[in-house]
């Protein structure tokens, strides 16, 4: 069975540009999570979806960041007017439901570099 798939694996963009990062969770997983991992740091929570709705978006750093999951499966993280400080690895994870067993299944991440 396929794991969590994230595309692109690498994205280089210029400051001020718009970026979309895609996550395809494990089939049947209703919960989906986005985390961000900056260099030398552990992953930091951004947003959690249960089904189509964002149940907790308290980790999004500002209003330039937005995420959607319109059909309850694939999710897209959108970053407007990118800044050099947005450079990081963006991790997506999924779980069968709201993390009841505590196990999140992570993708390999999308590495974003803002020049």
């Amino acid at each position, binding site marked *: 069975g396929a*794991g*969590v798939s994230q595309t692109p694996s690498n994205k280089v963009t210029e400051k001020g540009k718009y970026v979309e990062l895609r996550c395809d969770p494990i089939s049947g997983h209703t*919960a989906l*999570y986005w*985390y961000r991992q900056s260099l*030398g*740091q*552990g*992953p*930091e*929570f951004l947003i*959690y979806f249960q089904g189509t709705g964002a*149940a*907790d978006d308290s*980790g999004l750093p500002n209003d330039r960041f937005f995420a959607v999951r319109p059909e309850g499966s694939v999710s897209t993280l959108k970053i407007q007017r990118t800044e050099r400080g947005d450079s990081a690895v963006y*991790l997506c*994870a999924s*779980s069968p439901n*709201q*993390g*009841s*067993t*505590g*196990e*999140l*299944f*992570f*993708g*390999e*991440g999308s590495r974003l570099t803002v020049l």
Partner: protein
Amino acid sequence: AQSVTQLDSQVPVFEEAPVELRCNYSSSVSVYLFWYVQYPNQGLQLLLKYLSGSTLVKGINGFEAEFNKSQTSFHLRKPSVHISDTAEYFCAVSGLGSNYKLTFGKGTLLTVNP
């Protein structure tokens, strides 16, 4: 809110030696505790977790960890490491009411040398 401190950023050891990776946490509420491992060019995967019950938990690949509430620690141990254990290890915590929101430490890079 929770926080996690991994006391060692890098731990070099020789093959077949024992290893302990230290993790301390801070929280105002009861917590769940996890260790995740990230092998080179792979995603994070769960190594083991403490949810409740026995404070000694066993995970994959011969790793174990012990939850110590009084010392707010959750140290990871393995009695004899292999070259293939070389990876970055992350300790994480979540509150019982928000178990989807993991707070991670900065990670410990375990390097096993021949």
